[in-house]
């Protein structure tokens, strides 16, 4: 069980903001902190890892006090035994993949731990390569492996998949779930991707402007329009053309260009470049299985 209450003033992009978070996280659970960028998600992880110190706060993990500003207790990050995966991977460029893992293990560690984690995350073929020669997804796997070599109880993931394409993302989500279960970890994931959160989390905390505004199981939290009988896809208007009495609005949704029909009333307030929401009833779309290309 992690019990935590922290208070810290942050200098964010929108000026000063107070991060004021109190929560409890159960052991063995994969929790997600969801929120827009600048909501304080990364700062929260850094506080938990001991990489930043709050103005006031108390952090207790598994009965052990990591931080108590009143009693002047602050366990340094080195002794918290956490695995931290950074958004930019933070692999050490001067070491090979093996070197990165050995550095994490330390001199006293058991080499078998490296072999085991390398097997699970399928790192075998590039153990001798330097990080600069790896693809984004490979780097991410190495970063995940490095964070797990010391067998931490707590794994912190700071938007680990945000720089990857969808296919790679989905495979790495599976990897994360695998290690989460295999090592009995308590995992805290920071993300702003709804589908990722829905797929992965046992428990969600919604963070807004430094405060937890909602928390709960994903199926309970997303019972509003997001997961109702309606599709909603955010997009951007590319062009609006008139055809007889209707207007054809061309919208970019993810990587697809979609044409949507609109009336004169619809387009009064719309201009190319506007952000729009394209929605459709669930009985409307046609669904068919895709044949794998390879």
């Amino acid at each position, binding site marked *: 069980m992690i019990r935590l209450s922290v208070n810290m003033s942050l200098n964010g992009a929108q000026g000063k903001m107070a991060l004021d978070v109190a929560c409890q996280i159960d052991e063995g659970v994969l929790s997600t902190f969801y929120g827009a960028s600048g909501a304080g998600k990364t700062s929260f992880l*850094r506080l938990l890892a001991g990489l930043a110190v709050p103005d006031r706060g108390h952090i207790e993990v598994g009965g052990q006090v990591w931080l108590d500003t009143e009693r002047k207790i602050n366990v340094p*990050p080195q002794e918290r035994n956490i695995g931290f995966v950074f958004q*930019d991977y933070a692999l*050490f460029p001067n070491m090979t993949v093996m070197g990165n893992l050995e*550095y*994490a293990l330390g001199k006293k560690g058991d080499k078998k731990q490296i072999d085991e984690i390398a097997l699970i995350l399928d790192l075998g073929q590039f153990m001798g390569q330097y990080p600069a020669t790896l693809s984004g997804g490979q780097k991410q796997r190495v970063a995940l492996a490095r964070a797990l070599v010391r067998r931490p109880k707590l794994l912190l993931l700071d938007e680990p998949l945000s720089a990857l394409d969808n296919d790679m993302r989905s495979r790495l989500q599976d990897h994360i779930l695998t290690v989460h279960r295999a090592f009995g970890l308590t995992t805290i994931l920071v993300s702003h991707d709804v589908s990722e959160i829905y797929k992965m989390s046992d428990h969600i905390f919604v963070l807004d402007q430094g405060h937890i505004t909602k928390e709960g199981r994903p199926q309970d939290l997303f019972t509003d329009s997001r997961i109702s009988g309606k599709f909603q896809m955010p997009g951007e208007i590319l062009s609006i053309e008139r055809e007889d009495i209707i207007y054809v609005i061309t919208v970019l949704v993810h990587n697809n260009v979609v044409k949507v029909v609109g009336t004169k009333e619809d387009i009064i307030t719309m201009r190319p470049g506007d952000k729009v929401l394209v929605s459709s009833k669930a009985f409307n779309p046609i669904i068919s299985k895709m044949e794998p290309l390879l």
Partner: protein
Amino acid sequence: MIDLTPFWITFKLAVVTTAILFVISVPLARWLAGTRNRFKSLVEAAVSMPLVLPPSVLGFYFLMAFGPSHGIGGFLDRYFDVRLVFSFPGLVLASVIYSLPFMVHPIQSGFAGLSANLAEASYSLGRGKWDTLTKVLLPNIKPSLLTGTVLTFAHTIGEFGVVLMIGGNIPGKTNVLSIAIYDEVEAMNYHNANIYALTLFAVTFAILLTVYFINHRFSILRRL
């Protein structure tokens, strides 16, 4: 017959100065690159002063401070029997101050170019500050370390003003190459002056060439 001691003194001064500066500058540069302290600008300005000040200004105040009849110099002379003015240790101290920016600036920009997450990743993996510095940070700023070291070495070799003011041109003790050239010219020994000058010219050019060549290789390697 040409006197060879200026070569030796110059070389010794450059090596000692560079070694001391390396040890001082790594922590200083690391602090400057990472700090948000409000005195940062003050320290940066102080470090950069030797770049713009005439060496004679530094030399003058150094003489004032460490002369045996003044403040610190008097104290050192009376209680420790140490005289920094007109001595080799004094020369080293002055050179260290005078060459400080040449070591600090490249290393500072090297540190600043590294992702802050590198050090934090190392801490989160249970490693302390020393391991992080020597195994993660320094190996990743080798070009900056090389540039700093070599520029400092070359700059110390080429020093004139400060050395003249502090060292006082004592043969065999503080008579470095740049001053020896000046002496030989004054004594109309153009042949000797030419040998000293040509050597300095060739050595500094070779040093700088090496640095730029190696850094060029580093940048190619990094792109691979």
